[in-house]
């Protein structure tokens, strides 16, 4: 059973001067599926993600969301459409509490943010949504802690909570498990398995075990080009993929 195509790129390219970060990428992301994106370092994964959420404008090519052409729009318009992203490098509001972090994310859903008079604390729905998002990722005990004071792994969780607090349809996750220990990663994998049921997810990760376990579809990028997209088994058996990773995997293991 094929799900609807919720996000699609057509001949997407990004050039920086002479450097081709991404070349002619055409991908289809299906609704309510977890679509993994992998590739060696420098393959263009983050660039792809940055374009899917509007932070980067493509040099050429198109991006379609539910059939509408959206490339070139301002990032906040992407978010309005329900496309949420988490950052690879933790990007939170360090000096305020976790609750406040998620409250900023959630506020847009429940109340006009151009209200100059009503106190920010007065809307119960915002607070509840923020707390819910924090509980979803397992940060219930840290709700009132200042974000700068929680551990690195917990900050990655907060990063995820903030995206969830915006109640998106599509989650673009850029290495959510970066720098996490085994136990923390397991928790995130469980969470993502759960979230797969409700959200469409595009997951960029280096953690191969996680990717193989979670992905319904898997795309491999190498040096800015699209190598293959298919099921996990299809990709694992593709000789070009092994070639792309061969030298690189040994390098990573040695590191």
């Amino acid at each position: 059973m094929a799900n609807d195509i919720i996000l699609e790129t057509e001949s997407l390219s990004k050039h920086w001067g002479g450097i081709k970060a991404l070349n002619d990428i055409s991908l289809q992301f299906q609704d309510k599926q977890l679509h993994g994106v992998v590739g060696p370092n420098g393959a263009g994964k983050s660039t792809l993600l940055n374009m899917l959420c509007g932070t980067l404008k493509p040099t050429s090519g198109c991006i379609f969301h539910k059939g509408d052409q959206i490339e070139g729009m301002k990032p906040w318009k992407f978010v309005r459409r329900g496309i949420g992203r988490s950052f690879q490098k933790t990007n939170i509001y360090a000096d305020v509490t976790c609750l406040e972090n998620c409250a900023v994310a959630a506020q847009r859903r429940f109340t006009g943010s151009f209200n100059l008079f009503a106190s920010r604390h007065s809307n119960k729905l915002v607070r509840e949504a923020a707390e819910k998002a924090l509980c979803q990722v397992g940060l219930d005990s840290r709700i009132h802690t200042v974000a700068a004071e929680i551990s690195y792994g917990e900050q990655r969780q907060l990063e995820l909570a903030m995206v969830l607090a915006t109640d998106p349809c599509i989650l673009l996750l850029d290495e959510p498990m970066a720098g996490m220990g085994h136990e923390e990663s397991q928790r995130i994998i469980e969470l993502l398995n759960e979230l797969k049921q409700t959200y469409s997810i595009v997951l960029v990760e280096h953690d191969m075990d996680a990717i193989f376990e979670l992905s319904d579809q898997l795309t491999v990028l190498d040096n800015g080009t699209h190598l293959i997209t298919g099921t996990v088994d299809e990709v694992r058996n593709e000789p070009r993929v092994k070639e792309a990773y061969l030298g690189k995997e040994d390098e990573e293991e040695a590191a």
Partner: protein
Amino acid sequence: MIFEKRTERIFLAIFFVIALCIPLFLEDNSFFVGKATTILILAVFVMSLDFLVGRVGLVTLGHALFYGLGGYLFVIVTPEYEAVNFWIYAMYIMGISALVALVVGVVVLRTSGIYFIMITLAISQMAYYFFFDSLEFGGNDGLFIFMKPETSIFGLNFLNLDNPTHFYYLSLLAVLVTLLAIKIILRSRFGRIVEASRLNPERTEALGYNIFAFRLISYIIGSTLAAYAGLLFALQYGYVNPQFMTWETSGTALVMSILGGMGTIYGAILGTITYEGLQYFFEHMSEDWMLFMGGAIILMVLLLRKGLAGYLEKLLEK
């Protein structure tokens, strides 16, 4: 609670109590009442700047543009020898200033960081030269205000702006209203996003907020408050000239704000009082007061990293 910090509550309580009593103690000395009034008016100007720079994150070196605009607009829109109604014309002038801020804001908010600093400086310099070179607006000498406006509301008149004490209380009211307005806005839902934009603009945009709109509205609010301060200043002394709009005026306000503790808002009041106090003190000590002022500023930057408010908070907050 809009005043969350203990230091803030203590300072403001002491400040307002003393400020309310000053004219009572200085009844015979209208010079000092006048000086105090000027400090209050400057505090409004500096608070509006502190809001923009310290809380919204818009470092503008062109804030004096609106300060001067408030004064010039009064002379431009009011008939020369008639005592107009202060409240109506104040609102009118603030409305025009808000429109100017809208136009300027749309242009300057396309830039950020250092460029924003420079372009705001350039625009206020442009305005300075416009008035400096213009004959219709009095050139470098500026224009005089011959009649102070009257302050009746629905026929009830209890303030006479020619009376220094009455003008003092009007200025104190302005300080109070400005302080409350800024604090309420910062605590509001709007304020939450504005602060988020300052703390992490990338993140805030990634959460779906149109930062440009939030900054523009904040810019309009801050600039309109500055225009009101400029209006009061022009009315107090009875004139307006291009010096209101120089980058020195903007720079001095910035110094006062940083001195007091950038972003604290109540620090702006503290900084204004301290700066003016120091200047008065140094002026009477020596002709070369600027030397000591410059030295004091340098020392404060090096030693008081978070300004006077920061220092007080270190002492008083647990």
